[in-house]
């Protein structure tokens, strides 16, 4: 009887076990397949050519400094704004095997029948010709940051050169006042009689913008500093159209210790970085006050370490947004205002911490 009873219970157990087994198999299969599905879908998502969204308008951004973080931020701002308005911005020539120059890229853009061009222009005739050609082909051109005033471009988005100059001038005045002190009664003979401030200018000399900027610096220094009579403003031309030209020019300028300036004013990211690196290389940190441009990680760290005195930043996102706004406005209305002004601000030792903390990408303001 005992064995029979145990037989019965064992039968029941077997039955249960088999039910559980079948259920387990099903679960394992389904879970395995689900897991597999998920693993695949992750890859599928990655493989699926990212974003298949379609847009009405196709704009291009043409600049010589595609790789710089500064332009990337501008592009980002432009892209976001464009996407809001059912348009897409392409950085022209970004992944081409041949490095075309700006004018060729404009030509390609015309050939490719894009709907609008954002252009970091210059005052050269070639550029002006290309802009005009684009206009003739019915493609609106908005110049960004640097203008081609005599061309038929629709609008210019940038910083007012005079304002920018005033900002630089303010900084120069600060530096000079720090050096001499505001109280002029005592003349300290251990100090130099003058402070030479060197503005590193783009070699495209026709740019009136740079002249205006220079004027801005000069006037601001005179207005703000009681020591303005001791400031000597000077300019140096940096070639930045050829490859590596800027870095070479800067090294040339700083090579001779005798003729080195007391203050260097850099008007773009590249020259700021180059100056910083050259100072570190030549071991002249502290001898020259650097007033830079843009807020890359490197520049921010340089400010923190007191290698660079201060840097002027532009609201890059705003530049991108404004340029797209200008293009859209022109495309839709056939008319757009000639000039969009973008905000600037200063990062110095006092507020560099905030920017470092926030991380580089987001600190546009």
């Amino acid at each position, binding site marked *: 009887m005992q064995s029979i009873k145990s037989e019965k219970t064992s039968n029941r157990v077997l039955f249960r076990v088999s039910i559980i087994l079948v259920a387990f198999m099903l679960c394992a299969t389904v879970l395995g397949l689900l897991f597999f599905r998920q693993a695949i879908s992750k890859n599928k998502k990655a493989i699926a050519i990212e974003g298949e969204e379609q847009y009405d308008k196709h704009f291009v951004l043409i600049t010589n400094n595609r790789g710089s973080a500064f332009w990337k931020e501008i592009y980002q701002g432009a892209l976001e704004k464009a996407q809001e308005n059912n348009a897409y911005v392409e950085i022209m020539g970004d992944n081409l095997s041949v490095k075309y120059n700006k004018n060729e890229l404009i030509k390609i853009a015309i050939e490719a029948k894009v*709907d609008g061009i954002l252009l970091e222009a210059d005052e050269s005739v070639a550029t002006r010709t290309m802009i005009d050609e684009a206009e003739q082909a019915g493609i609106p051109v908005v110049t960004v940051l640097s203008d081609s005033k005599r061309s038929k471009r629709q609008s210019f988005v940038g910083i007012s050169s005079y304002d920018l100059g005033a900002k630089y001038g303010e900084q120069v005045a600060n530096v000079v006042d720090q050096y001499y002190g505001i109280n002029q009664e005592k003349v300290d003979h251990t100090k130099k009689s003058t402070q030479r401030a060197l503005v590193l200018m783009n070699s495209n000399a026709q740019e009136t913008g740079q002249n205006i900027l220079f004027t801005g610096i000069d006037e601001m220094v005179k207005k703000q500093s009681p020591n303005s009579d001791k400031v000597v403003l000077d300019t140096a031309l940096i070639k930045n159209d050829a490859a590596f030209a800027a870095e070479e020019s800067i090294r040339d300028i700083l090579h001779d210790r005798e003729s080195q300036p007391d203050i260097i004013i850099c008007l773009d990211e590249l020259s700021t970085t180059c100056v910083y690196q050259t100072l570190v290389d030549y071991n002249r940190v502290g001898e020259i006050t650097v007033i830079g441009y843009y807020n890359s990680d490197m520049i921010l760290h340089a400010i923190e370490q007191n290698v660079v005195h201060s840097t002027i930043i532009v609201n890059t996102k705003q530049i991108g947004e404004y340029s797209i706004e200008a293009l859209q406005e022109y495309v839709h209305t056939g008319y757009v205002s000639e000039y969009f002004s973008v905000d600037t601000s200063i990062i110095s030792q006092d507020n560099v911490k905030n920017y470092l903390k926030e991380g580089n990408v987001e600190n546009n303001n």
Partner: protein
Amino acid sequence: MLKTIIKRKILNLSIQAKLTMAFVITTFLLLAVNLFMYVHINDMISQIDAVYQSNISLNELDQALIKVQSSMTAYLNTKTSDALEEYFRSEQNYSKLVEKLNEKTQNNQLKLMEKNIKNMSENYLLTTNQTVEAKRGRNVEKYKLRYEKASKQYGYISTYIYSLNNEQFRKNASNYEMLSMTLHYFEATSTIILIVVALCNIILVIIVTRSITNPLRELSIVANQVAKGDLTVQLSGNYSKDEIGVLNKAFDTMLTNIQVYISKIRHNLEVEREMKEKELLMETHLKDAQLKYLQAQINPHFLFNTLNAGAQLAMLEDAERTYEYIQNVALFFRYNIKKNNDIVTIREEIELVDNYIYILNVRFSGEIAFEKRIDETVLHYKIPSMILQPIVENCINYGIRDIDWQGKIILEVYQDFEHICISISDNGIGMEQDVVDKIFTKKLQEADLSADSNGIGLDNVIGRLRLFYASSDVFEIVSEGHNKGTKVIIYIPLEERE
């Protein structure tokens, strides 16, 4: 509730169905898993194909572009109609290929490049057509200018195609990497699933086969026990409805039936044995009676013949009473000789009693009054022999021998509902109850019997009656006490021994 229903249904399946179910379930699972896997493999293969297809088609596009340019150049060089034909053909081919390219603005660099290529190609083809047109119109200035323009455009386009090809290849390489990673996932997943399913399948098959073999095992164990002679074992009543369940049930029923038969046979044997015992006892008693009788009547034949001779002699001498007496004695003895068999009629028994009383009355000069009240209709009923005479003898010997008053014996034969009753009563000294009890329990010793007895005691009579009628209620002794006489009643069941 549902579970038990399902369970019952499963348990009720036949072996074939069970086995089929097990294999079908497992096979189906494996099949499903494999199918799923194959579908995904196909999917991935087509993805890989697509990855490289884009490169292949770009190469095609590049070739077509080169052909357009070269055929145009050839035409410009030679102005042959062959070259022109070649140009038109390649131009057509190229524009057909270009048509397939993306023309929408999408947030995808590669698609945008495609769009640019398409637009540039349209312009390029326009230019080449114009160039060829100018060449045909012999407009040297124009066709040279346009050729230059076309060449420039050609340069841009081929750069774009080349770059796009590169980009795509780079992307494809990373896609391929992902695909191969997916393949690894796939491999791992499918291996694990297959192993799990295979293991579970094995266990499932084991369980199913066990559920089939378990009842068989139980059956074999029980069968072994039965073979060893233990018929009390039983299978668990929980039969499945399959073939083995039927077998087990049949086996169980067979066991039960065997047990029933065995107990029946045993009972029958018991009854038979009892019957035989009874018969033997009867015989023994009869033999015993006869033996005792023979011991008493040394040679009845001799005695009978002698008495007959005496009777004839008395006849010759005209001694009527003597003749009658001797005749009665002779009859008395002859009964014993004649009725050697054990069953006689009541009439014969009563005749014997008559003889006996006559003899005794002659012997004791008519002291005994004998009265008969007999229902003549029952006299043909048969009873064992030598029943009544010993009782009457007993009455005389113990009841009325030593009394001072006239002894009287009454023999009654009558019928009630179920019995023929034979009652023999006397008016003698009676019997104490303990003596009655002693008679019934055979405690009365042989020594207590008087020397005059012909040797057949009451206990012998009672024993034979009881054996004969298989009942203990055939004999009754009633006495109301000292000097109040005794009554012996024999109850003969009516339905028997007619």
